């Protein structure tokens, strides 16, 4: 469908969801403060670790900060724009996927459009702050080339996260209790907030080759930090993102064939 139409629909959906979130004002503000506190405490863990050591997996504090910022940025973008992919299993289980299928928009696009979380926006901001502090304090160079690749990798990273989640969610067409599995895989994402060099080779390989979360934060960060051994891999990120999106979408289309409506519909 026409690109312009897609974007205008998307914009409308975004506004709708924002209004929904801010319906309960005080609760909304409290939620934001809560998320900021959660981020602060995670960062505090990193800072506390660095008061007792100079290097973690070969990363200094500023370097870890940049790594952390990269992971927050990718996560933030995914959570803000693409988070509705999490609702697929719920729709399939409750049979409410019908209302999505009936819309004059491709189901996958519809699902992607209808969900935005302000949480993502906050994460993104926190990520940018981390990056700024990391670059400034670490005295690391930053130029147009890096800026371009940062944006490219962050967006690609968001799509990688999206694709992995989509693949897991598609399993809902065959299994009923899939949400827990999705949550488990998503928890693996926590691993890549820290240098993957600190983990055993077994875990590291899973995070690179099987569930490529490393490409959402570690390799882009290595590129930002001019780390020779790893930065080369960052250039593959957009390619990996693209292929994963294609694979995930195809898998979803395939799964759709198995969809049995509950008959009730909405």
């Amino acid at each position, binding site marked *: 469908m026409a690109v312009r139409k897609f974007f205008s629909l998307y914009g409308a959906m975004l506004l709708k969801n924002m209004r929904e979130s801010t319906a309960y004002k*005080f609760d909304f503000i409290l939620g934001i403060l809560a*998320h900021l*506190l959660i981020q602060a405490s995670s960062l505090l863990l990193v800072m506390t670790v660095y*008061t007792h050591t100079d290097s*973690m997996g070969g990363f200094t504090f500023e370097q870890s900060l940049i790594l952390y910022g990269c992971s927050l940025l990718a996560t933030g973008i995914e959570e803000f724009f693409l988070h509705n992919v999490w609702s697929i299993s719920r729709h399939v289980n409750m049979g409410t996927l019908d209302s999505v299928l009936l819309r004059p928009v491709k189901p996958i696009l519809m699902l992607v459009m209808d969900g935005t979380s302000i949480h993502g926006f906050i994460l993104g901001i926190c990520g940018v702050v981390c990056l700024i502090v990391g670059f400034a304090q670490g005295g690391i160079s930053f130029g147009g080339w890096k800026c371009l690749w940062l944006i490219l990798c962050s967006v690609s990273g968001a799509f990688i996260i999206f694709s992995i989640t989509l693949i897991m969610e598609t399993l809902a067409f065959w299994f009923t209790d899939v949400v827990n599995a999705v*949550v*488990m895989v998503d928890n693996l994402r926590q691993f890549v907030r820290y240098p993957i060099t*600190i983990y055993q080779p077994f875990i590291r390989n899973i995070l690179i080759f099987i569930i490529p979360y490393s490409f959402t934060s570690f390799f882009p960060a290595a590129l930002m930090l001019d780390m020779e051994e790893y930065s080369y891999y960052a250039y593959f990120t957009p390619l990996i993102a693209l292929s994963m999106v294609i694979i995930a979408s195809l898998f979803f289309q395939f799964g759709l064939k198995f969809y049995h409506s509950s008959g009730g519909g909405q």
Partner: protein
Amino acid sequence: MRKKADKYLGLLWIRMRASVQYRFSFVSGIISTLLQIAIQYAIWTQVFKNRVSINGFERADMFTYLLVSQSLLIIFSFRNAPERMISQKIKQGDIALELIHPVQFTLARFFENLGDSVMNIGIAILFVVVCGCVFPDFIVPKSIGSVLMFLLSVCFSYLIMFFISAMAGYLTFFTMNFWGIYNAKKAIVDFLSGALIPIALFPESVRWIFSYLPFQNIVYTPVMIFLEKYTMRECGVQLLIQCIWMIVLMCLNEWVYKVSVRRISVNGG
């Protein structure tokens, strides 16, 4: 008296049976905990490469701290959060019905919560025991006294956690939705209770804040007792502090409850 007890135990029993239904979310919760432990373990292993001890904590201490604190979190995560239940009842107006019931509202919620927790408690105990047998690094308390004090401390922690959750639940009446308060409470508690990082590892300048708040008594105190980092006398003092906080929070909770109920009655709900 017996009749009264039966009512509350009945609530506990119902919840306990219901929690068996949530088997899978339960298992995934355990696995998520294990993943958390794996990450923390990897991080702290790096730190201990160059140091033998940090602020009195050795590698084995840290490892044990991680395992025991995460086990406690399994218990305290309150799957069917009291906040959610209370706020649901308030939102749906069921609260009027509940107030007619011949049971004390908070007490009823407590027993429901306990029912939910039974499975979690069993798993947490199993977890700690298995770790104790499997990992050579895992420090096991050497005296029965320590174990008993640890268990007592955990009971106090459970109550403290419950009262905080219940209060948060009543406060949802003022914010109209439980989500914000739930996340805020979770964030504050996770951070200040010593769940992520042992409070002893924080710089001196920050640590005094923790001692004035009830949160460190939820995770930090019981685990320190487990690690036998306190002398007998210090243990006694810490248990007393927990007790005091428990009573303070209970009174505070009753006060918030009364204020909320009055508000509802005034609104004619």
